[in-house]
């Protein structure tokens, strides 16, 4: 009964348009329901930037090296917001679409997948603000910008990987839903977003970069802002751990997916 891996991939390919339509639905509905529409994609990281700049930048006097603190925080918050939003929406995507899961067959992985795809639009919108900030602060990227595509792929991999795990667990254990916001908050502070990596002693960094967000988000920021602190070993470690998380998430999802319709 369980289709082999090649069959599964073939089927995924067959249903590729459904991924688009589900993502399109998520985006359309969100923008139809929210009065501010696309502005939310910008407001979230911008508000974060203002708050963190006030409390950490001004009050606590956090140093951010050669980069002004507001843009430093924003460049980290934009990819982080993508990660956190995808976790939130994709993690609830199966139970939120239980009517689909119990009534129609399609590769279930499309549900968290569509949330991740829909999030990319917000990421693109919030990145445009980053562009404006870069113009304002007159910051140009350097050669490390070439890393950006790989880093974005890594960001999507880790987001989808963790989401598949959460979405599948959520079907069986509704506790996950309540644990997720807390976990996301913890994760934020384990990732160099409001503080620079230099705040952490060098000997701890290889260990911390096992957190895929560590190397990927710091890498995205350094690549975009042309910072001298691009940490290649940390980026590579994080990309590797993102891939591992993706594979683990996918395998767990595939093993759990047979019982989704019965348990949900």
């Amino acid at each position, binding site marked *: 009964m369980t289709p082999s891996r090649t069959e599964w991939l073939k089927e995924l390919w067959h249903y590729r348009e459904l991924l688009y339509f589900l993502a399109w639905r998520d985006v*359309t509905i969100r923008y139809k329901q929210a009065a501010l529409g696309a502005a939310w994609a910008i407001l979230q990281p911008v508000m974060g930037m203002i708050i963190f700049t006030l409390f950490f930048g001004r009050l606590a006097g956090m140093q951010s090296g050669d980069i002004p603190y507001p843009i430093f925080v924003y460049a980290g918050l934009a990819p982080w917001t993508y990660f956190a939003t995808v976790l939130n929406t994709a993690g609830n995507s199966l139970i939120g679409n239980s009517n689909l899961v119990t009534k129609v067959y399609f590769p279930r992985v499309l549900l968290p997948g569509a949330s991740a795809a829909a999030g990319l639009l917000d990421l693109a919108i919030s990145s445009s603000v980053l562009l404006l900030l870069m113009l304002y602060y007159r910051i140009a990227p350097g050669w490390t910008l070439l890393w950006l595509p790989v880093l974005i792929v890594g960001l999507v991999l880790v987001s989808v990987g963790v989401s598949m795990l959460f979405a599948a667990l959520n079907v069986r254990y509704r506790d996950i839903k309540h644990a997720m916001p807390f976990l996301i908050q913890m994760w934020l502070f384990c990732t160099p977003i409001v503080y620079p990596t230099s705040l952490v002693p060098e000997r701890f960094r290889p260990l911390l970069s096992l957190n895929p967000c560590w190397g990927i988000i710091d890498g995205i920021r350094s690549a975009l802002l042309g910072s001298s602190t691009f940490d290649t070993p940390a980026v590579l470690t994080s990309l590797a751990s993102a891939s591992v998380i993706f594979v683990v998430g996918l395998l767990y999802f595939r093993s759990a997916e047979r019982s989704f319709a019965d348990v*949900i």
Partner: protein
Amino acid sequence: MSNQQAIVVDNVTKRYQLGETRHTMLREAVVGALSRLTGKARAAEEGRILWALNGVSLEVQRGEVLGLVGRNGAGKSTLLKVLSRITYPTSGHVTVHGRVGSLLEVGTGFHDELSGRENIYLNGSILGMKRQEIDREIDRIVDFADISEFLDTPIKRYSSGMRMRLGFAIAAHLSTDVLFVDEVLAVGDAGFQKKCLSSMRELGQGGRTVIFVSHNLSAIENLCSRTIWLSDGQVKEDGPTKDVLRSYLASFGAGTADLMDLTSIAERKGSGLAKLTTLQVIPPDGDKIVHSGDALTIRLSYECAKDLTNLHFGVRIHSNLGLMITEANTWATGQALPSAPAGPGQIDVQIDNLNLMPGTYYLGAWVATYNEWQDLVEHAAKLEIEASDFYGTGRGVEARFGVIFLPYRWVPRSASS
């Protein structure tokens, strides 16, 4: 395996654990794992198992239209879910050749905020259609559902009838090799139901393999050459539709065509000591059609779980807008059954004169003891009343004249008298 077979089901079982909290809490899972470790498995767990399918085997040839009947909980829907890979069998094998479409619900995944057009694309792609196919079919879908004026209106403004029509129209334009349909004809007004039936027939004639579940037995008879009767998760009978329906109906202790199987209707209330099993509309003189002004018999079959006294019955007629027009009951006539023994029974209500204008009406039925509902089925069956030439003028009593038809005559009087 010959390549003429579209579907092969080999000894399939499906087990459900009853009473299990559907959404396990993590705490319970941890406690459960610990108790399993310490060897203290909960004994109660094992006793509550339901075999929704219990060794089902069947083969369906390519191009065959197969009917599936059975009482509520017989496993019909579970079988369709297993066939369409929504759920997996506990044991056994299922092989389905070709592209599969399943229609277990009309309008799955419709979203209120999206327009009709947007929902066509969304629902179509959920059902497995390609965007190109939808582009090609959209005009026909809109035409079929008759919603062209509202195509760009959010469907939250649609009436429930419009939603149903749209949902069915999309599914009717699915071009899969195999199609599973679960009880979707029970929706919409009479005209649309006819359209659905004929489109279902076309689906079958197009060389497509169809499995069709319905409690509307005349639809099954109309559409399917072969029928399978499922009972308690097993194939009870498999053969030509007429034969299978005959034995299926015989199991209710009644016969003939316009008979509604009420056992599979889930929406009902009452204590259930007496349960309605079928409702049969019997037009006069062996006619198949009910006309305005006809005499009409409605026959209820019921089953008592134990000996009951003072059993009351009622039949309600609702308009197609849900207004209760009238109720014929044993309370008003003082004709309660003094005693009804355990087991099946039948009772007729004979209506002298069906004073209703032509149109679609809905019948409800109930059975009650002295002060307690035993079984109330609000939507038991549909009643089509056709125009009649009551006055012999060839001018018919027609729907545009209202709902109630009063037999009348006009008497001119001269001004002087």
